[in-house]
C-alpha cells in the first residue's frame, strides 16, 4: 500500500513535473491555452542557395519562358537594353525587387521589437546591393497612391502560421529577372517566407497588371549563414558609363531591331548546355499566358506552332489585381477633395481634384506653384490656410518648467502662455507662380491671388507693408496667351492673368523666401511656349508643371508652341538640376503636374519613355509612313496602358500626332 502510494505519488509528481515542463516550455515558445505558437525567428544572416533556375547565370536574351507577358510587356522587354544601367540616373539602382532575393551576396534580416510586448514591430531586409527594406508588422496601412514609389516599395507583413506573408506596393519600374524581362511601375509583390529548420524558402508572386496576364512566381532558397556578415557594396557611379558625349543618352532598341532576341537559337542556353534543338520552340520561349499551360503542347508540331490551334486554345486566367487604370487614376484622384502630402523642407504637395499644387509654407508666408481649377479655389484656400496654421502658427505644448525656461522679457511660466494662448494669424500667400497657361495652372488665380498679400519694399520709414493681392509670376508668353489687345476678347478674365512676367531663361524671387532661394526656369517649346519649372533650392524640390505627369503622356499643345523635343529638353533640365539621395532614389523631389510625388529615377523613366516613342516615330517617318500609318502601327503599345487613353481630352492618338507633327516642324 505504502509502495502503491509511493508509486502514485511519484507518478503524480512526474506528471506534475511534465505538465510544469509543458507550461514552462509553452511559456518559453509563446504557446499555451489561448495563445498561438510564436512564429519562427528569421532575423539573422542567410546564404543564397544557387540551386534554382535563374539564381545564378541568366536566361538568354529574349527567352521569356515561364512569363505570362502580354504584347506590351514583351515589347517593353524587347526594346529596353541592359545598357540602361549605364545611364546616370540608373547606375546606382539596386536590383529590382522581383530579382533582389536572387542577387549575389546573401541576405540579412534584422528585427525591431516593442520593448514591452517583445512583439516584432518591423523586420529589415538587407542585401549586398540594396537599400534597407523595412517590413512593417504593426498593422499600419499602405500610403496613398500619390506617395512616391521606391526600388524596395512599401511593405507590410503578417504571420500566417509559420509563414511570413509580405505585401509590397509603391514599387518603381524595373525587371523581373536578370537580362531583359521588364516590369512596369504598377506592379505589386507578395512574398511568402517560410522557415524549416535552417532553410528559408521565399516564394515571390509578382502582379503586374500592365505587362502580365498572370502573376510571375518564383521561389528562392536560403540557408542559415551562421557567423557570416553580409557584404555591403556602396555605389560610386559618377559618369556616363555608356560612352559618347551625350549625358542624356537613352539606349534603346527600335521595335524589331534587337538582334539579340534570337541569338540563343544558335547558341542554346549557356546555363545548362542545352542546345537550341532541345530547347522549347521560339514562340513558346517568347512567353505569354497560354505557353504556361501543358495544353500548349497540343498546338506544337515539333518546333512549329499551329497558329489556329493556339488561337483557339483556352486556359484559365488568374488575374487578381486591381485594374491598372484605376490604380493609375488613384495617383491623381478627381474626387473633389484636396489631399496634403508633405514633401521636404518647406514644401508640400496638394493633390487637388486631379491637379497638383506645390506649396511653400514658412514664417514669411505661403508661395503657390499653380492654383488648380477655378472650381476648387475655395477648398484649396481652406487647405492652404489650415496647412499654414499647422506648420507655422500652431500652439505647442509647454516643454519646460520653472525659472530655468528660456525667456527674453523677464520670466513668466511658459505654461501660462501655452494655456491661455491662441494661434497667431497665419502669414498670407505671398507669391503665386503659374507654370503655364493651362486651365489647371491658372484656374484659381482669380480667388487665391486677391486672398494673398505680396511684399512691398521700401517707402518712407522703411516699413515693409503688404500690397493688394499676391503677385502672380509666369513667363510672358503665358500672359500673351491669356490676354488680348483692347477691343478683343481675352481667353481668360484679367483677374486670372499673371502680374509679374519674365522673358529670359529664368526668374529669381527677389530675395530668400522662407529661408531659401526660389528660381523659376523657362522651358522653351515644351507643352507650350510658356512653360516654367520652379526650383526650391534649400528644400530640394522642383515643381515640374505639365512637363511631367505620372498619369498621362504630356499634353503637348502645338498651336501654343509646344513640341516633344522641348518636353524632353525640359525633363533633361530637371534631371540636371536634381540629385538622388542614394542608390538612385530620393534626394530632390519632383512634384509632377499630375500624379504621384517623384524623384530623379521617375523623371528619368518618363524621359526614357518619351525618347523611345520619339525615336520610333522618327524612324517611321524616315520610312515615309503617314500619320495614319504611324497611329495604326501602335508604336507606343508598351506605354499606352500606363500613360495612354482611348477617350477623354488627351488620347494616345492625339499624343502620337503631336509627336509626329513636332518632328515635322523639327523644333
Amino acid at each position, binding site marked *: 500500500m505504502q509502495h502503491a502510494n509511493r508509486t502514485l505519488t511519484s507518478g503524480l509528481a512526474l506528471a506534475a513535473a511534465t505538465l510544469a515542463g509543458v507550461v514552462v516550455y509553452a511559456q518559453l515558445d509563446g504557446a499555451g491555452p489561448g495563445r498561438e505558437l510564436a512564429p519562427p525567428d528569421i532575423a539573422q544572416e542567410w546564404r543564397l542557395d544557387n540551386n534554382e533556375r535563374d539564381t545564378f547565370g*541568366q536566361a538568354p536574351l529574349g527567352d521569356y519562358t515561364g512569363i505570362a507577358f502580354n504584347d506590351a510587356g514583351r515589347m517593353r522587354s524587347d526594346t529596353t*537594353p*541592359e545598357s540602361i544601367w*549605364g545611364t546616370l540616373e540608373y547606375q546606382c539602382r539596386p536590383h529590382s525587387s522581383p530579382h533582389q532575393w536572387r542577387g549575389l551576396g546573401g541576405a540579412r534580416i534584422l528585427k525591431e521589437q516593442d520593448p514591452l510586448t517583445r512583439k516584432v514591430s518591423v523586420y529589415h531586409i538587407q542585401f549586398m546591393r540594396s537599400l534597407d527594406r523595412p517590413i512593417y508588422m504593426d498593422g499600419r496601412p499602405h500610403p496613398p497612391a500619390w506617395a512616391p514609389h521606391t526600388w524596395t516599395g512599401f511593405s507590410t507583413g503578417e504571420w500566417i502560421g509559420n509563414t511570413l506573408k509580405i505585401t509590397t506596393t509603391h514599387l518603381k519600374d524595373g525587371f523581373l529577372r*536578370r*537580362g531583359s524581362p521588364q516590369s512596369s511601375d504598377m506592379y505589386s509583390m507578395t512574398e511568402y517566407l517560410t522557415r524549416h529548420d535552417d532553410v528559408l524558402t521565399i516564394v515571390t508572386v509578382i502582379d503586374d497588371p500592365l505587362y502580365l496576364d498572370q502573376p510571375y512566381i518564383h521561389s528562392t532558397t536560403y540557408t542559415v549563414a551562421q557567423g557570416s556578415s553580409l557584404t555591403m557594396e556602396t555605389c560610386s557611379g559618377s559618369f556616363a558609363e*555608356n*560612352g559618347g*558625349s551625350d549625358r542624356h543618352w537613352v539606349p534603346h532598341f527600335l521595335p524589331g531591331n534587337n538582334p539579340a532576341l534570337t541569338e540563343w537559337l544558335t547558341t542554346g542556353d549557356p546555363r545548362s548546355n542545352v542546345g537550341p534543338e532541345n530547347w522549347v520552340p521560339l514562340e513558346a520561349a517568347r512567353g505569354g499566358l497560354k505557353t504556361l499551360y501543358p495544353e500548349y503542347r497540343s498546338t506544337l508540331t515539333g518546333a512549329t506552332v499551329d497558329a489556329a490551334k493556339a488561337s483557339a486554345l483556352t486556359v484559365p486566367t488568374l488575374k487578381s489585381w486591381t485594374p491598372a487604370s484605376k490604380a493609375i487614376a488613384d495617383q491623381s484622384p478627381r474626387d473633389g477633395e484636396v489631399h496634403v502630402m508633405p514633401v521636404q523642407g518647406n514644401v508640400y504637395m496638394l493633390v487637388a481634384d486631379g491637379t497638383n499644387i506645390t506649396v511653400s509654407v514658412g514664417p514669411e508666408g505661403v508661395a503657390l506653384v499653380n492654383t488648380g481649377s477655378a472650381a476648387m479655389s475655395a477648398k484649396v484656400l481652406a487647405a492652404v490656410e489650415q496647412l499654414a496654421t499647422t506648420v507655422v502658427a500652431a500652439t505647442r505644448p509647454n516643454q519646460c518648467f520653472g525659472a530655468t525656461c528660456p525667456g527674453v522679457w523677464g520670466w513668466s511660466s511658459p505654461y501660462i502662455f501655452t494655456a491661455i494662448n491662441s494661434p497667431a494669424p497665419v502669414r498670407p500667400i505671398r507669391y503665386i507662380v503659374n507654370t503655364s497657361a493651362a486651365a489647371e495652372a491658372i484656374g484659381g488665380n482669380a480667388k487665391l491671388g486677391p486672398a494673398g498679400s505680396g511684399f512691398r519694399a521700401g517707402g518712407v520709414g522703411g516699413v515693409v507693408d503688404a500690397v493688394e493681392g499676391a503677385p502672380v509670376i509666369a513667363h510672358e508668353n503665358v500672359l500673351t496667351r491669356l490676354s488680348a489687345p483692347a477691343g478683343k476678347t481675352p481667353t481668360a478674365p484679367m483677374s486670372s492673368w499673371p502680374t509679374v512676367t519674365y522673358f529670359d531663361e529664368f526668374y529669381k524671387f527677389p530675395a530668400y523666401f522662407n529661408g531659401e532661394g526660389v528660381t523659376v526656369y523657362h522651358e522653351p517649346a515644351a507643352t507650350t511656349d510658356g512653360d516654367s519649372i520652379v526650383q526650391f533650392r534649400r528644400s530640394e524640390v522642383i515643381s515640374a508643371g505639365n512637363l511631367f505627369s505620372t498619369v498621362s503622356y504630356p499634353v503637348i499643345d502645338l498651336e501654343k508652341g509646344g513640341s516633344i523635343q522641348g518636353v524632353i529638353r525640359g525633363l533633361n533640365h530637371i534631371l540636371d538640376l536634381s540629385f538622388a539621395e542614394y542608390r538612385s532614389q530620393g534626394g530632390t523631389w519632383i512634384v509632377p503636374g499630375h500624379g504621384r510625388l517623384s524623384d530623379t529615377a521617375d523623371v528619368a523613366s518618363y524621359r526614357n519613355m518619351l525618347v523611345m516613342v520619339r525615336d520610333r516615330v522618327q524612324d517611321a517617318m524616315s520610312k515615309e509612313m503617314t500619320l495614319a500609318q504611324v497611329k495604326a502601327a501602335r508604336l507606343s503599345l508598351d506605354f499606352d496602358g500606363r500613360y495612354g487613353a482611348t477617350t477623354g481630352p488627351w488620347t494616345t492618338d492625339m499624343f502620337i500626332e503631336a509627336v509626329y507633327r513636332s518632328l515635322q516642324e523639327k523644333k
Partner: protein
Amino acid sequence: MRTRILLTVIAALVAAASASAHHSYTATYDTRNQVTLTGTLVQFVFKNPHSFVIVSAPDAKGVAQRWSLEWSGVGQLSNQGVKRETLKPGDEIVAVGNPSRVPGEYKALLVSLKRPLDGFTWGGRAGEAVD
C-alpha cells in the same frame, strides 16, 4: 599555411563578387564580336564593382568619340598586376573589346589592351578576362 588558405578563400570570394555584376555583361555586350580601338587614354577609373578606361578614339566613320571600356573591379585587376597608376592620361593604347549591343553606343567590354610605348599588355593570359 592557414593564412594562405584564408587568403585564397577571400580571393575566391572577391572574384565571385566581381563575377556577378549588378548588370549582366552578356546582356550588355555582344561577346561574339570585337572592335579594335586605337587612341589616347583620357582617364583610367580604377574602382569597384567595375573599372573603366576612357579612350578618345575614332568610330567606324573616323570621327573621334569618347569610348567607355568596361574592365574588371579593383580586386581582380590587382591580382593581375594592374594598379591605379598603371595607365596614365595621354597614353597611346590599342584596345580590343566586345561592343555594346545598342547601336550608336560608344562602349565596349575590354578583351585586351596594349600600350606600344613600353609593351604593357593585358588580356589573353590566364585569368585576364572580365567575367
